């Protein structure tokens, strides 16, 4: 498998998930928080899941009692959380050094 390249979309998803690092997130929520369109969110989450950054599980609720369809929740794995923090920090550092900080 090819190593995961941190694209803009992936970093935006990391940033959204890191608002609650230990929490569970569903695709629509992540799409809204990260401003990545819903189709791309699924592609990003599939890549993250394949690389062991996140895991997913379908919630165990009764849809009629919950009043909404059953969701699939995504959460960071232990290593995934470290990798996400590291990637986001690297990106921020690169942006600060090469970007507006020196302008």
């Amino acid at each position: 498998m090819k190593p995961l390249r941190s694209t803009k979309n992936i970093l935006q998803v990391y940033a959204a998930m890191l608002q609650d690092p230990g929490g569970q997130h569903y695709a629509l929520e992540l799409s809204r928080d990260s401003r990545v369109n819903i189709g791309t969110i699924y592609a990003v989450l599939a890549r993250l899941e394949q690389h062991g950054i996140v895991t997913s599980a379908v919630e165990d609720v009764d849809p009629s009692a919950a009043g909404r369809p059953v969701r699939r929740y995504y959460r960071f794995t232990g290593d995934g959380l470290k990798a996400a923090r590291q990637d986001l920090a690297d990106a921020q550092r690169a942006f600060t050094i090469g970007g507006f900080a020196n302008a």
Partner: protein
Amino acid sequence: MPDLLKDILIGLGTSAFIERAPKIADSLIHLSCTMLPEELRDRYRHDWTSTVACIDGNLSKLGAAVQILVSVPAIRRAFGLAPISESTFIFLLAMSNMLMGAVLMIADFYFNGLTGKVAPDFLILWIPVMWLSFLSGLVLGIKLVWDAYKAGSFTRMIFTACGFILYISWFNPDLLLNQETAWASLSDSTILPTFLAGIAMMTHEKYFMRRVRR
């Protein structure tokens, strides 16, 4: 047409489209799922259906379904698969064949009055398109016959081969070599049959063969 009537018809058409948008979204999700391998279909059908159901507004649901459809190649790549499956490739090939047939038919209709007056440059422009249309049909035909042969289905192979032979016999590329009769060949012996053959092949692949596979 009076303006008022036009406004009413446009309004009715728009509201009918908005009403039907969730159903179209469902169809798009179904289409997106068919582009995934079988082991992923149930998972994504459930995920996408529940996500789209939670979106407010009929057109927003449709927009989300379109975004999902567009992202399918990226999801396939995430799972280490080719961006489009073989059956999608065949479908796109058939569609492009039909589309080119339709474009040529319209062009032929539009320029028919100019037959004989059209400069050779124009034919030089169209002949490659015509050939592309022919070749894409050819590739599609070979692929369909080969698949049927590999699957060991005699009936399916005969059906496909008959369609393929019909397609080849309708298309008469030799006439294109003679520029004086080029327009006659485009209008009479190639465009419409190519178009019809495209429809026939696509229908065959999408419905008949799929039913047989089940």
